[in-house]
């Protein structure tokens, strides 16, 4: 992956990277053509397993300049349940429903806390060699070792000028996640500390908010999304523990010294739904917010566009939906934008000249809708695009839907399966034995004789 914009949206960078790769561009184009052709029956619930993977540092020797982030399994499970609720509310109009998976690898063990995996990151390191200015003078190859704890995750291999990005190579995270989750079968959300976008020769730090890939390239790139801890709502941080909330606050000051995060009170919008819709929508085949034409996306200062003509995946300039223009805000971490509607069936937003010439950046956390959160919904066309992906042969989404039961223990799955049946039916049929005969008396006699035999034999065998 090549970092094109240097900041903010890994979704956009990943998409542009794929569009510039001939093979991946074909995959994107084919996917777009297939899913926009068919209509989906929104009455049927699409069930998808989900797992939240928490990267933390329970025992890190490097913990000298910043606090260690340690999360217990119980805290992670609590947060996962709340995130699950949020994700499902965000997808309600699409009738796509997530369920916490307790068997995230088909041949693996059942995990103790469904939908929750903790990964210790203390060994996450990688080396990068690049051509640069040597300390002793002159130019030559320089090798630097990065750690997850100190440097975060490099959001790309290199920027648009070919400079490496600071941070642990994302392949390290890919491998750690793949060891624990079948990511093409279980929707995977990795919660991490930071996505680094800083050029290796640049002293000013830049950070991305989240990242993920389009489902069309799931077999080429690792199909999961990364959401930083600081993107979580305060209530979820509290679930993770008061100390964690404090640590994250302190960490953000260390890692983002030049950024002032708006508090939740300042955000006005109380719902995290725009954020969740952005993440899930992007992972389910909608184009990420802030996309414009491929040409514009490659310029040093990429412009946003309000064109709805065509679809960027097939050479056009639109977002592949007829009725939804791309939206931009001038700065991801900027102060709150007013009156911006990002997801919805609306006319093209009139961009100011200032915004047009700013990098294409979208910040779901900056939505302001005067408390009208309910208006932030997917359009019918967007719902259709997402759902069609689950009904198109060969897609990662259809694979997730079709293998749903394999990623749940039977007891968990039977409960989910029975959701669709009346209580009396499931209770009578699935759990009750075929007769009311009770074998308690026989069992008591059986046990009594068994105990006598054990006493007799143990006396001989173990004397």
């Amino acid at each position, binding site marked *: 992956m090549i970092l094109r914009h240097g900041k903010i949206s890994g979704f956009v960078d990943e998409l542009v990277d794929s569009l510039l790769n001939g093979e991946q561009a074909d995959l994107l184009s084919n996917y777009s053509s297939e899913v926009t052709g068919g209509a989906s029956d929104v009455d049927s619930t699409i069930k998808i397993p989900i797992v939240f993977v928490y990267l933390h540092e329970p025992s890190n020797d490097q913990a000298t300049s910043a606090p260690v982030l340690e999360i217990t399994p119980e805290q992670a499970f609590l947060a996962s349940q709340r995130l699950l609720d949020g994700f499902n509310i965000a997808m309600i109009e699409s009738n796509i429903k997530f369920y916490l998976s307790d068997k995230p690898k088909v041949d693996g063990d*059942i995990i103790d806390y469904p939908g929750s995996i903790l990964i210790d990151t203390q060994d996450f390191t990688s080396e990068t060699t690049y051509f640069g200015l040597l300390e002793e003078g002159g130019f030559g190859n320089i090798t630097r070792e990065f750690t997850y704890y100190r440097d975060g995750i490099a959001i790309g291999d290199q920027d648009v000028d070919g400079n490496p990005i600071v941070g642990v190579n994302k392949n390290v995270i890919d491998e750690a996640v793949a060891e624990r989750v079948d990511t093409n079968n279980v929707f995977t959300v990795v919660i991490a500390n930071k996505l680094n976008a800083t050029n290796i020769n640049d002293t000013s730090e830049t950070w991305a908010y989240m990242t993920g890939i389009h489902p069309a390239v799931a077999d080429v790139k690792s199909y999961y999304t990364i959401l930083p801890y600081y993107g979580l709502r305060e209530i979820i941080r509290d679930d993770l523990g008061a100390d964690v909330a404090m640590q994250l606050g302190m960490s953000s000051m260390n890692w983002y010294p030049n950024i002032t995060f708006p508090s939740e009170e300042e955000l006005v919008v109380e719902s995290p739904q725009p954020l969740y819709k952005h993440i899930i929508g992007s992972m389910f085949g909608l184009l990420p917010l802030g996309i414009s034409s491929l040409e514009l996306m490659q310029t040093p200062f990429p412009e946003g566009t309000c064109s709805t003509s065509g679809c960027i995946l097939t050479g056009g300039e639109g977002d592949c939906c007829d009725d939804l223009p791309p939206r931009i805000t001038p700065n991801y971490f900027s102060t709150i934008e007013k009156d911006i509607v990002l997801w919805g069936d609306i006319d093209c937003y009139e961009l100011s000249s200032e915004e047009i010439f700013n990098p294409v950046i979208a910040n779901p956390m900056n939505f302001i809708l005067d408390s009208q959160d309910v208006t932030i919904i997917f359009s019918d066309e967007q719902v259709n695009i997402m759902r069609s992906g689950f009904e198109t042969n060969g897609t990662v989404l259809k694979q997730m839907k079709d293998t749903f*039961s394999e990623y749940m*223990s*039977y*007891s968990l*799955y*039977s409960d989910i399966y029975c959701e669709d049946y009346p209580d009396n*039916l499931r209770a009578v*049929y*699935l*759990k009750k*034995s*075929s*007769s009311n*005969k009770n*074998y*308690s008396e*026989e*069992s*008591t*006699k*059986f*046990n009594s*004789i*068994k105990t*006598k*035999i*054990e006493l*007799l*034999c*143990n*006396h*001989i*065998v173990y004397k």
Partner: protein
Amino acid sequence: MALDLKLDIQTTNDCRTLVIEDMTGNYSEDNLGGWGELNHIPYKNNTSIYIIVKVYFYEGEELVTSEGVFSLDTYQNFADIPFEDNYKKFKLALPIRTLQEIMDEIEGFEVVEDNLYQISIRVSDSTDITNEYGHKEFVFKNTCMTSKLVSKALTSINLQCEDCDDSDLDKVLLAKSLLESLENV
């Protein structure tokens, strides 16, 4: 005659797996309750077969039960199904770990412990589970571990000595006799 389902139930030699095998057989003059002819044929595309396992066991002084339902469709990785299109002669092998996934109460079992097992089979329409073609209940008295213990006790007795304690022999013979009665409870 209606479908007369027959099962053979046993454990593996290491007592760690419960094995349930269909012995219903095909319909014939000698087997009017067999599969086919006037009775249902368990085609995979229209039939669901559920095995319901219920175990009675003691936790301290208290008799408790644990029950789990195993669908052949869901547990096909644990089943040997000789025919491509139907479930005849299926053999379902459920390791103790798999049983524990469904039956939380037996999480402390290290093997398929010796207890009384009430095992039922239900055959129904896969699109309408209330449309039942047949069901039957069996009682399996598992003596796998106890049998091994008695065998071990028998081989532990030294019959060659001159001053052997005959009481040991009496005890193990009594145990062997009790084992037989255990199987006939």
